[in-house]
């Protein structure tokens, strides 16, 4: 690989960041700093490396540190603006008596980034609320000036989904929809997981944390680890960027001996997230051997995913970009037959407002014609999914794809 030395150097720096007692190897001669810069940007690590260079002068050329600083400065300015939005949202929800748990990036900033929103840029705030408080929480966020995401029919999200996004477009923000608040009343978006993760128990096990100057709460470390594995798998298709495994590793080291690995394994099995937990923690073990204790790694490797769990995981991950398949998997895994039927009907035949905003104006204003466009897209999604399924079947039977291994001799 052309950038092998640069990749190895980045990993060595991350290892040093995680284990400060492990010496940082000096940068190999001839290292392509432009390449390092590009890789750091791709891995989402520029700002973390800025902090590293700031704390340990002389790690790399000053010109490189200046590049990192410029990125950090922009992120910091932006992060401060976002922090003000986060604070306002938390204050308003707290004043309305709505209990919230901060999820994802904003929950990690206090622990892993010293509270600096410039080091871990988060353009949205993800909040878990109790299902009974979701409607009120939506009202509070909208009263702050946020606009709700487009829905197929009014109330579609509340009926069939467990999250809804709200966007902010306010001066002096430089562009529309600059910041979003996503309200979740369940952890994962795919309905298969809805009944498997007890929201009330998440609140009971939650931990206090200060976010953007506000005292609030976040998931317990054990819950977060399992959730993060599921999120990386189902939402990010196991993306290869290093900042996610770095954060998980840093969180594990931060928790230290207090981390209840038995609870992690239990949650993985109960939440039907065995495959994501095995794969994500397995990758962590490859990057930083020993980060998951050997006995724990064996225990997690021994977990067996159920057949439906494997099937849902396969379809959601392999067809991540396929909206048709996602809608179908959502419909087929919703609890309750009637609810499934109504969901599929409402998803297939959305309201006129949704159609117009999604597909543009209809010829002659005849909005039902837009259904033809929608069904055309659905047919394309179905064809793509069928192609993938045939390819996967071929690979299972023959060990390679139908077009691989031919031609070049």
């Amino acid at each position, binding site marked *: 690989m052309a950038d092998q030395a640069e990749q190895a150097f980045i990993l060595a720096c991350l290892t040093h960041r995680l284990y400060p007692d492990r010496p940082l190897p000096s940068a190999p001669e001839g290292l392509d700093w432009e390449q390092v810069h590009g890789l750091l940007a791709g891995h989402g690590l520029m700002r973390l490396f800025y902090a590293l260079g700031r704390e340990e002068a002389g790690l790399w050329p000053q010109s490189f540190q200046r590049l990192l600083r410029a990125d950090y400065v*922009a992120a910091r*300015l932006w992060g401060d603006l976002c922090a003000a939005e986060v604070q306002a949202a938390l204050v308003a929800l707290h004043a309305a008596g709505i209990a919230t748990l901060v999820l994802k990036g904003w929950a990690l900033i206090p622990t892993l980034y010293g509270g600096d929103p410039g080091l871990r840029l988060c353009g949205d705030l993800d909040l878990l609320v109790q299902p009974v408080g979701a409607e009120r929480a939506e009202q509070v966020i909208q009263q702050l000036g946020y606009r709700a995401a487009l829905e197929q029919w009014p109330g579609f999200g509340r009926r069939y989904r467990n999250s809804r996004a709200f966007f902010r477009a306010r001066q*002096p*923000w430089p562009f529309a929809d600059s910041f979003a608040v996503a309200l979740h009343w369940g952890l994962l978006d795919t309905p298969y997981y809805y009944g498997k993760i007890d929201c009330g128990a998440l609140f009971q096990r939650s931990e206090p944390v200060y976010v953007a100057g506000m005292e609030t709460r976040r998931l317990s470390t054990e819950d977060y680890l399992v959730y993060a594995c599921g999120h990386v798998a189902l939402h990010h298709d196991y993306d290869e960027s290093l900042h996610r495994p770095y954060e998980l590793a840093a969180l594990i080291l931060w928790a230290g001996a207090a981390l209840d690995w038995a609870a992690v394994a239990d949650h993985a099995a109960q939440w039907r997230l065995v495959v994501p937990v095995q794969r994500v923690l397995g990758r962590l073990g490859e990057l930083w051997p020993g980060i998951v204790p050997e006995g724990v790694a064996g225990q997690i490797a021994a977990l067996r995913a159920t057949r439906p769990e494997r099937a849902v995981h396969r379809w959601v991950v392999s067809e991540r970009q396929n909206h048709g398949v996602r809608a179908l998997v959502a419909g087929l895994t919703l609890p309750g037959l009637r609810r499934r039927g109504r969901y599929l009907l409402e998803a297939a035949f959305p309201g006129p407002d949704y159609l117009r905003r999604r597909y543009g104006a209809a010829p002659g204003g005849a909005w039902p014609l837009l259904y033809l466009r929608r069904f055309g897209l659905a047919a394309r999604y179905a064809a793509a999914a069928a192609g993938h399924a045939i390819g996967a079947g071929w690979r299972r039977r023959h060990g390679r794809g139908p077009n691989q291994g031919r031609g070049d001799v």
Partner: protein
Amino acid sequence: MRPMNVSVPAEVISTQVEGEAVLLNLLTGQYYSLDEVGTRIWVLLAQHGQVEPVVQALMEEYDVAEDELRRDLLELADKLAAQGLLWVDEA
């Protein structure tokens, strides 16, 4: 000297990095950074909204002649205003 009111426009955001103020004008997309003294002046201007209390505060913090301080302060305020980073209003 006539009293001068100052204020930071809504489209200007700032933060401090390694002890230096960094200012961004969202309308132009231009970044500016101030040195240590400039940062202190910026913080005081934003805090007081008037030039006179800033002069008094800086006189206590720095060993400098008042005339020289006023000249440097107004020069900085003019530069900031020229870049749209500060509104200066002679009351």
